């Protein structure tokens, strides 16, 4: 689940390479500017969709390069810069939402707006809004790998938005490439015409020209009336400390320019436009006006991204359109965890950092909470585990915070006997069992694509994770799509890793939220030296509680260093102990020799020992290392 951090991290990055406007726009941009008044028939708004690693970003880079927006030398330096960031963050950073000019073989110049979409299921809603800003999609399929689960999920999503999908077969230069087989697969499985799909190598540039020509031929030009009341879709936004929120939008109807009074129809926020413009490569380029069919940005001294929610409709406050564009919804966090500063004194710093991140990320939520074991911190809500990981990483790297994160959990619905319903995000807040009528947990619909030899192993895995089998279809002789309903809480930890290891990497997986289901859930408490550690409690299905409790105790036994006394580690449901391990008392911690030449070294050793204690959390008499609080995440899949 970690491969696709790129897009998200890039978009949420305040050092985002596009946020500064460069007055010295290069020739390429001027060329774009001259075309600003071009008519709709010369515009193509599209995105590229693909399964992870099928070459989406490489193709985007190649298109940008070949349309002359950046010279190949600039391109290379840009790629190199990104690589540096990539190394620094351990994530990939590549293509952008960008406007490019292409001089076609018919002699005409066209404007392409390439809108990049995040590739991860955590951001499905945001993907759907990005797609809604497009008129067509290029589907990149790896000539060796063929159609994968995400390929399917992305195509269906694109078709849902009435996009014309144009397939491209990539990596035909690989020895294992089988373009003809893959074309057949696309036609059979997805059911779209693919015989004339360009067979390309985005890496070498082979046949990319053909892709550009087909964009003109196959992707429809936008429609919409520039004279109609303004109706623009927000598909992204970033925060800039000078300009406030920069809103990325697609103008569906009407036009927008400096001074236009705007209204965000869902949030009700009002503002006056300060600047409009479009996306150069790596820059925001101001222009006079954006009109129906165009993709660009506006700024309006908006201070909070909460006012410019993705999916909302921008209209003219004085002459509003009749109704907003369809599809807006407020996205709620799916996964929650506690985040605490390792050093309690850094609590205000953590608040500050979370507030700054939230400026760019309306889906990040947090509120203060207190833990007996961990002190003051925040309960934070995320779109998914990847989102959580990215935020955690950014807090640690960009804000230099040392964090203790508790095990992530989903949002449970607790129906109390008095008729009250609680949305439970923190296991510690679970009411007494006597007050609970029943509980519900979130369920996802999962599609797993797997080669036939691993079907058994994957079905076992889904079974273990309390999956409900919904059906299976053979895509071709050797591959099938398995459909399961799975509890979200069973897939947020290590499901993806387990899937990969049991299918030797051949399974691919996609899911979407599919409501709530009543479930037999219990709160599992962990007692260390007979004291309950609130930050280690979690909610688990009654059937798996024993196993989880046992493995949790085993894991904690490894994590907790030996003390001067014996430490029992117990897992309990209510007052019933279901598992126990013991950390043996330390027998010996002594340095046999210490003479004149040893003193400096000996002191360093003692200092290290003392320093180590500082990184521990004191619970009763026991010092618990910070990473132990995340150990529930590492309960390995059965090997």
């Amino acid at each position, binding site marked *: 689940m970690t491969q696709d951090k790129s897009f998200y991290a890039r978009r949420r990055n305040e050092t985002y390479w596009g946020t500064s406007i460069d007055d010295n726009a290069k020739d390429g941009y001027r060329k774009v500017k001259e075309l600003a008044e071009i008519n709709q028939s010369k515009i193509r708004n599209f995105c590229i969709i693909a399964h992870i690693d099928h070459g989406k970003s490489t193709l985007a880079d190649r298109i940008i390069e070949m349309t002359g927006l950046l010279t190949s030398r600039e391109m290379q330096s840009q790629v190199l810069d990104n690589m540096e960031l990539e190394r620094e963050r351990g994530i990939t950073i590549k293509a952008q939402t960008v406007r490019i000019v292409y001089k076609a073989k018919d002699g005409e110049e066209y404007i392409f707006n390439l809108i990049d979409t995040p590739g991860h299921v955590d951001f499905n809603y945001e993907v759907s809004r990005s797609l809604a800003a497009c008129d067509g999609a290029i589907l990149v399929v790896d000539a060796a790998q063929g159609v994968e689960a995400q390929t399917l999920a992305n195509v269906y999503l694109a078709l849902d938005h009435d996009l014309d999908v144009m397939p491209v077969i990539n990596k035909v230069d690989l020895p294992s490439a089988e373009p003809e087989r893959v074309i057949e697969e696309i036609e059979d499985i997805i059911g779209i015409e693919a015989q004339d799909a360009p067979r390309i190598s985005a890496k070498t540039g082979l046949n990319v020209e053909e892709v550009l020509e087909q964009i003109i031929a196959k992707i429809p030009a936008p429609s919409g009336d520039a004279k109609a009341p303004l109706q623009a879709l927000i598909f992204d936004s970033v925060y800039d400390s000078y300009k406030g929120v920069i809103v990325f939008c697609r103008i569906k109807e009407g036009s927008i320019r400096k001074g236009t009074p705007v209204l965000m129809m869902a949030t009700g926020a009002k503002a006056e436009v300060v600047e409009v413009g479009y996306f150069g490569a790596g820059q925001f380029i101001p222009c006079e006006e954006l009109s129906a069919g165009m993709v660009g940005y506006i700024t309006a001294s908006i201070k909070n991204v909460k006012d410019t929610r993705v999916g909302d409709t921008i209209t003219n406050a004085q002459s509003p359109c009749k109704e907003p564009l369809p599809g807006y919804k407020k996205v709620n966090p799916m996964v929650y965890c506690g985040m605490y500063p390792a050093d309690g004194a850094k609590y205000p710093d953590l608040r500050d950092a979370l507030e700054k991140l939230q400026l760019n990320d309306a889906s990040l939520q947090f509120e203060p909470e207190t833990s007996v074991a961990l002190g003051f911190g925040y309960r934070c809500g995320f779109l998914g585990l990847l989102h959580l990981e990215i935020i955690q990483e950014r807090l640690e790297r960009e804000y230099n915070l040392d964090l203790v994160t508790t095990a992530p959990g989903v949002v449970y619905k607790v129906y109390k006997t008095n008729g009250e319903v609680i949305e439970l995000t923190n296991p510690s807040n679970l009411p007494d069992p006597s007050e609970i009528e029943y509980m519900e947990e979130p369920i996802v619909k999962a599609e797993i694509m797997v080669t036939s030899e691993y079907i058994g192993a994957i079905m076992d895995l889904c079974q273990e994770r309390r999956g409900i089998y919904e059906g299976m279809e053979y895509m071709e002789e050797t591959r099938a799509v398995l459909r399961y309903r799975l509890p979200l809480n069973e897939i947020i930890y290590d499901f993806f890793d387990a899937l990969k290891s049991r299918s030797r990497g051949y399974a691919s997986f996609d899911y979407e939220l599919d409501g709530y289901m009543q479930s037999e859930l219990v709160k599992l408490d962990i007692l260390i030296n007979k004291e309950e550690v609130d930050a280690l409690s979690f909610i688990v299905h009654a059937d798996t509680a024993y196993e989880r409790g046992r493995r949790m105790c085993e894991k904690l036994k490894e994590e907790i260093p030996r003390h*001067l006394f014996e430490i029992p580690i117990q897992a309990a449901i209510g007052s019933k102990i279901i598992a126990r391990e013991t950390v043996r008392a330390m027998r010996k*911690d002594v340095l046999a020799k*210490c003479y004149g030449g040893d003193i400096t070294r000996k002191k360093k*050793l*003692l200092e290290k020992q003392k320093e180590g204690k500082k990184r521990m959390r004191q619970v009763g008499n026991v010092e618990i290392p910070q990473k132990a609080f995340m150990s529930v995440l590492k309960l390995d899949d059965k090997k």
Partner: protein
Amino acid sequence: MKSLEIYVHIPFCVKKCNYCDFLSAPATKEERREYVESLCRQIRSYREASRDYRVVSVFVGGGTPSILEGEQITEIFRAVRETFSIEEGVEITIEMNPGTVSAEKLEAYRAAGINRLSIGLQSADNEELRTLGRIHTFEDFLGTYRMARAAGFGNINVDLISAVPGQTVESFADTLRRTAALSPEHISAYSLIIEEGTPFFALYGDGACGHGGEYPPLPDEDSERQMYYDTKRILGEYGYHRYEISNYAKPGYECRHNLGYWNRTEYLGFGDGAASLMDHRRWVSGGQPEELSREDEMEEFMFLGLRKTAGVSKTAFGKEFGVPVEMVYEKVLADMAGRHLLVQDGDVIRLTERGLDVSNYVMSEFLL
């Protein structure tokens, strides 16, 4: 006049042992000759500094100092005596290993004023000696020991190592008894430390009870502690008392030089890698001195002093730092006493048996 201890380091050995991380290595005759020359120059360069001090002990350590010729030792002591004022009857020790000593060398030691020998035996079990990578057998040791007694040395220490790979509680008890039966005045018994950079580290990792391939496994933790407890008990039967974590002596034969380190007497170290402590500074030969703050010195006073079974004196702390120890360490003292790791007994603060077992833990609490 202030007291001063002198340490002289001889970094040569016949062959490096499997557990040794000291600065030592085999060397040619020529290298040894040059080393002794430069050592003597280094000692003589302290003529000025020596004025305010009287030397209370000298220790020649290694390596294996007994590798040097008798006359080289004579030369070194000529330099020491010409530079420092050494009182009559102070403890002067040289370390030696079985198989590197002759009657002539012992005679030269006597003539140089050396009055204490420290012999590295390590084990009375020849198999264990092989595992350790020692160059001698127990029988070789017996020969050296008898030769030393015959040469008139009345103060001898024997070094032992416990928790050697393949060692058992029984075999170590046997080593203890066979050593004590010879009645040396002093016995040092160290629990083996697997130091980084030694062959043992590669075999046994970071002190883990692993198996070292063709080498036998390390004794487990319970056996290791048993050996430690047995050391005190068995040597006690032979009239030795433990006065420091790893040191045992017959009454009056505690090693003055080493007590000096734990009592923070000032010392000068000569030779490669030797450490010195003087005027609130510590340095290693040829290196930059480290200034010790008052807090540094309080910490050292405690963690070094607590190595001694007699512990530290509250009066001595107050005299040294002008502040009562309770004021600086009130909380730690109460906490450690409450956990039975330490006792306060009149003027004395000392570790309990359990406190000695986990002394690193206790001592780290005394860091400010």
